């Protein structure tokens, strides 16, 4: 691969091409007329893809290590559910409320934690996540506690939902692509690699950290809300730490700091863990091992592996 390919703009373009290819392939999956269940699995896979994209925007592109994505998904799911449960509000009111609400919360959390670094940031966001979960899980009168709330569905028919979620993934990736190609994307990358240097190069670091944090929270909230309307149930389990761990692992396995990586990782990890359900449900054991192996030995993730192969292939073709 010629050196110029290493320019960020080129890397990003290649990335998006691969993602669109992947999604184009996913378009044909329903033609295999799968059982509604398998479609459901794929849809949940897409949900995780959205979450992975959101978390990667923060960790992979801005270097902010949040432990709260799942919590924001839960909040995003509960806002419309509570509106529906207490006021009978429709989803069309609920969805914007979810996005705005989680963005606002993300902004507030961001303003408080983004001065903190590394482990501090991880721990505070983790604390926030747990507070949110304990609060929702234990406010039995208000949220029906850990049994969760029912949400109205957005559309009927798995196929419809499948393409809807697929479209969301494409849309979200495209938006992130546009952001990362703009100069603001450049700022985020600079902050990721060296916040102090970025600051003295004239980039208002805190403002852009906050920006990324808010956007990411909003995406998570939206994803959670969509997931709720698909499964017609939101429960505190959406916000479990394990969920965040799952998301992080997806990004790591797929390849952090890219767009295709998280999506690929989300789909593969979720599908494989669903298959492994059937082998004496040891999926969690196998899955955990898998994650450790990847984090330890394939740090660039599948995306990195792919790029490596691609590069070698290219150079072979040259000589």
């Amino acid at each position, binding site marked *: 691969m010629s050196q110029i390919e290493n320019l960020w703009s080129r890397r990003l373009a290649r990335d998006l091409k691969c993602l669109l290819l992947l999604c184009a392939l996913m378009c044909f999956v329903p033609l295999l007329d799968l*059982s*509604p*269940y*398998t479609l*459901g699995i794929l849809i*949940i896979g897409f949900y995780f893809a959205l979450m992975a994209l959101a978390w990667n925007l923060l960790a992979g592109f801005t270097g902010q290590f949040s432990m709260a994505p799942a919590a924001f998904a839960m909040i995003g799911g509960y806002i419309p559910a509570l509106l529906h449960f207490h006021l009978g509000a429709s989803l069309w009111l609920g969805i914007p409320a979810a996005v705005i609400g989680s963005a606002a919360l993300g902004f507030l959390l961001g303003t408080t934690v983004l001065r903190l670094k590394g482990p501090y940031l991880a721990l505070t966001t983790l604390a926030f996540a747990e507070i949110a979960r*304990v609060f929702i*899980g*234990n406010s*039995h009168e208000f949220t*029906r*506690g*850990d*049994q*969760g709330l*029912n949400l109205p569905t957005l559309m009927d028919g798995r196929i419809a939902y499948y393409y809807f979620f697929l479209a969301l993934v494409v849309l979200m990736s495209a938006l992130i692509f546009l952001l990362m190609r703009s100069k603001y994307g450049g700022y985020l990358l600079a902050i990721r690699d060296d916040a102090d240097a970025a600051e003295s190069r004239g980039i208002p670091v805190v403002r852009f950290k906050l920006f990324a944090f808010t956007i990411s929270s909003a995406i998570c909230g939206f994803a959670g809300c969509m997931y709720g309307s698909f*499964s*017609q*149930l939101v*429960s505190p*389990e*959406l916000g479990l730490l394990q969920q965040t761990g799952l998301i992080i692992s997806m990004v790591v396995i797929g390849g952090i700091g890219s767009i295709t990586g998280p999506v690929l990782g989300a789909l*593969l990890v979720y599908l*494989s863990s669903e*298959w*492994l*359900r*059937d*082998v004496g*449900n040891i999926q*969690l054991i*196998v899955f955990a091992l*898998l994650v450790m*192996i990847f984090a330890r030995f*394939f740090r660039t993730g*599948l995306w990195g*592996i792919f790029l490596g192969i691609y590069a070698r292939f290219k150079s072979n073709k040259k000589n």
Partner: protein
Amino acid sequence: MNYLLKKTALVGALLLGVSFQASAAEPILVGISITQSPPGSVVQGVQIKDALEIYRDLVNAKGGVLGRPIQLVFEDSQGLPEKGRSAVEKLITKDKVVAIAGSHQSSVCLSEIEVAHRYQIPYVNTNCWADSVREKGYPEVFNTSPYNSVVAKSMAATLKAMKVKRVVAFAENTDYGIGLAKGLGTALKAAAPNVDYKFETLDRSSKDFTPAILTLKANPPDVVVLTMLPPAAYIALNQLYEQGVAPTAKTIVYDGAGMADYPDFWQNVKEAGKYLMTIGMYHPEMNQTDLSRQIAVAYKRKTGNDPNRLIFQAVDSLVVVVDSIRQAKSTDPEKMLAAMGTGKFEGARGTMTFDSHQGGTYHQWVDIPYVNYQLTAVNQAVGNTTLLQGPGMPLNIGKLQYPK
């Protein structure tokens, strides 16, 4: 990477194997959603699994139903509503089961019946006590499980007979716990209005209930009611004992979860379990059917434990499924549901029929047998406990013992 590949290959092979068996003698698939891994109560899940397998073998030994063997498809709900929902979804849409049974946690039931209702598949509730499961009024849902309102009524009657003045309940913050605690409150108002009753909700994930218990120390009530499930309930019991709040010559603990016959009860509470008064859904002195005897023997052989109420509840839920198929002469959901609505079912705990009135007892086996008994020694087997109230018999509170 090829690690993943290997795994998937393995899985694929396994799936093939399963499906091959299935196609060999087209069995009737019944979906079972139970907790097989934490955070849910796996102990309950394991008991239910054993019991169901025992009954399945009994049925298949007799040539199955409609000449077809029964096959159980187990799914792990992890005791989480979300997982339960997707488990039932899988059972119905992927495995194409004719009915769902086995669920044993109200919060999980409440999310699962939504799915069963959506796909109009019969759903027999094995052990979800919360009234809200019945109040939904879904025609697909039938309940062989105990239910909060009957438990509350019986506990209120017992408390009345004890002539207590003050009762404090510790309720876990779930639909089951809070539901039962509230139900007990209303039942007490009706039965014994002069009893001073209040309940505290506790976070069942917390490991230290001492603060809540300490508040009772200055002026202990006559009875401490626990509407909590193990393991939280075990910890609460131990801490009540170690703080000297109960059991004492003044105060008795009254368990509303029927946990005294759990196989892991005594290995978790020692001295603290002595003098525990509990409502039980099973007691060896209940009038045995020959089914229950067979089950008891088989269960003892399989696990080495004495059977308990959960075993029989599980069996009964499968009985309803199997017999409804037999009576409907079909595995068509509608016909099965019709049969369930009208039929009589000879279960391990007696003849089951289901109430058709909307509300807290909708599609519930109303006159479900229960007992009240007291543990009088550490490591005591349920058989040797003091029976305060036999099934369907009047309460004999005179037998109740207090520590010296």
